[in-house]
């Protein structure tokens, strides 16, 4: 069986400053993967690079053995909640049906069965009763659930989630975990950027420790060790960092 996501030699740089450096890993199918690392470790960038949203300096990415362009319909994406303006004039159901736009096709309107699929996704995350509420009227947890529903409505095989647990209430956290479990039983692969180290062993069975490069990856029981965490979080300013920082400062002066 081909891996849902394999990454080789991936390097991404913004303004000549490398954000992720020579990253490589291969995910086992049907696993719940936690991506853990300090701020600025390049976690979001990794997801964006996988989906061709940021230009990469080098590297090869295969999704189910294919390029992202060909496997796009099998990938569901949950961006960071703060990445959008929640004052936008749409309601929750509108946001969820956005997940179906590529299926609906260009120039065609959202039809009844798409709205029904959207409602079903909202039901799964437990906020079907808020379908017609303007999104700024939703609480943080409800907004996060809306984003999750938008990814679920596509019925993908690989899900990429950027901090779905950030600043949500306890019941939303529980609802999201339940959905992760349910996706897991259906043999879907889910990659989740996660901040709370304490819950990693409870939520995930596979972990990727990232700090610009991959510190370690593997089953939680083997890889999620104090030594590896020390390596990931300790000694933030590596030599590489210092050099690029110096380069950037000089560039600013020039």
């Amino acid at each position: 069986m081909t891996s849902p996501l394999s990454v080789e030699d991936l390097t991404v740089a913004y303004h000549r400053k490398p954000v992720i450096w020579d990253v490589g890993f291969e995910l086992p199918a049907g696993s719940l993967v936690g991506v853990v690392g300090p701020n600025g470790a390049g976690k979001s960038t990794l997801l964006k690079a996988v989906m061709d949203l940021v230009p990469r300096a080098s590297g090869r990415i295969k999704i189910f053995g294919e390029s992202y362009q060909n496997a796009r319909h099998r990938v569901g994406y949950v961006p960071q909640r703060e990445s959008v303006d929640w004052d936008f004039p749409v309601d929750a159901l509108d946001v969820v049906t956005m997940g179906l736009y590529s299926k609906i096709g260009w120039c065609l309107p959202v039809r009844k069965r798409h709205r029904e699929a959207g409602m079903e996704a909202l039901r799964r995350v437990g906020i079907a009763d808020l379908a017609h509420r303007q999104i700024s009227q939703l609480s943080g947890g409800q907004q996060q659930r809306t984003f999750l529903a938008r990814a679920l409505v596509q019925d993908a095989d690989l899900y990429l989630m950027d901090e779905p647990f950030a600043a949500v209430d306890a019941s939303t956290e529980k609802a999201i975990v339940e959905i992760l479990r349910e996706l897991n039983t259906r043999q879907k692969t889910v990659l989740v950027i996660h901040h709370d180290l304490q819950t990693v062993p409870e939520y995930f069975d596979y972990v990727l420790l990232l700090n610009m490069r991959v510190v370690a990856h593997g089953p939680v029981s083997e890889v999620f060790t104090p030594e590896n965490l020390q390596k990931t979080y300790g000694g933030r300013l590596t030599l590489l960092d210092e050099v690029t920082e110096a380069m950037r400062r000089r560039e600013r002066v020039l």
Partner: protein
Amino acid sequence: MRGMVAAIDSIAARGAQWPDGHQLRSVLLLEDYNTRVVVLGVAMLGIASGLVGSFTLLRKRALMGDALAHASLPGITTAFMLATWLGYDGKSLPLLLIGAAVGGLVGVGLIVLLKSQTRLKQDTTLGIVLSVFFALGVAMLGVIQQMTSGSAAGLETFIYGKTASMTRFDGWLIAIASLIAIGGCVLAFKEFKLLCFDEDFAGSRGVPTRLLDMILMGLVVLITIVGLQAVGLILMVALLVIPAAAARFWTESMWRMAVISSLLGMIGGVLGAGVSALFPRLTSGAMIVLVCAGLFLLSMVFGRSRGVLVRLLRRRRLNRRVHRDHLLRGMFESGEAGIGDEEGSLRPWITMDELLRRRSWSRRELQKSIRQASDEGWLRRDNGCIGLTVAGYAEAARLTRQHRLWELFLIHHADVAPSRVDRDADMIEHVLEPELVEELERLLAQETIRITVPTSPH
């Protein structure tokens, strides 16, 4: 501002001219074919810019149109000079508009280039390019006026806009270009919506975001360029921004916002052009913008979903509810404390003074709340004393319970000093939703409220 001195001078020189009956009739009834076409063109322009404007507003690119319009002036003058020099008619409209489009695009390109090559922010580069291009255009206009080979009279209409000088060809041109922009927006409505809301997600779904952005920019170019004659390049941005911003006050739905914005743009365009047709000294650009501004003001005050009045009302309603809740809880707690006339009664009669002592509220406030609560049937009044009705008692019990649940929650789960609890509880409890109360009950393992009902005698 720039046009003010010139406008005042010309008013002083000529004196205001009032239209006679014949002119009024011909404008109002659209008797003249030329007028009809121009009005149609301006109406379509208003719709198109309202529609495109909603997207650029939500994409937070509202000022890009301004830079584009200003940067078109040197393009126009260059086209005029080139055409005259090559022996063509310098005032041929298609040539001038092509020049305008090229100028505008060069300006926008320069903004993007400056931003990517320097550390300047977008607003800075926008300000620089906008003013420099405009200055260049004004200087070139001066040069053209010195040239003997061609008369530049008429080129200024691009600056301030003048529907009166428009021919039916111009009208048709505006109408058709606007129709293209409207068609583009309607066809790619949901794609544009997704682009404006969540660019990354759009990209992840395979939507060509860069191409869509370019198409949107292209639509802005199209309507800005054809709108130059009617609205003028200084004020063109208003037609892109004001109707869309005004429409936002009325609705929380994207397509309704687009429709309202188009309508406002159309009304602004037609009324503004009409006024300008009646008073040829008033440039149509200024009139269109002023009408739009009036519509904006109306929307801002009376807008149904975000207008100032609606929000004021909502806040007042919440305040009133808060006061009423406090009053009912005060009554309930007085009953608990055994205050009142009858010993041990749960719904005692209480005097105003006793109530006043329970909280820091002014007598006037309290009286108002009492009047309101008794109108709603929660309270009964009897010569200076007040008491809860049966319904009022149930409501007061519910409110008190909710308040105490919240207090308990704050003490146990939110690490709040017990002395501060009452104030925090007060602030939040009035917005608690039923689901949240249920959640609190669960968290605090409280029994849900149960009202005993006697068994049916039948």
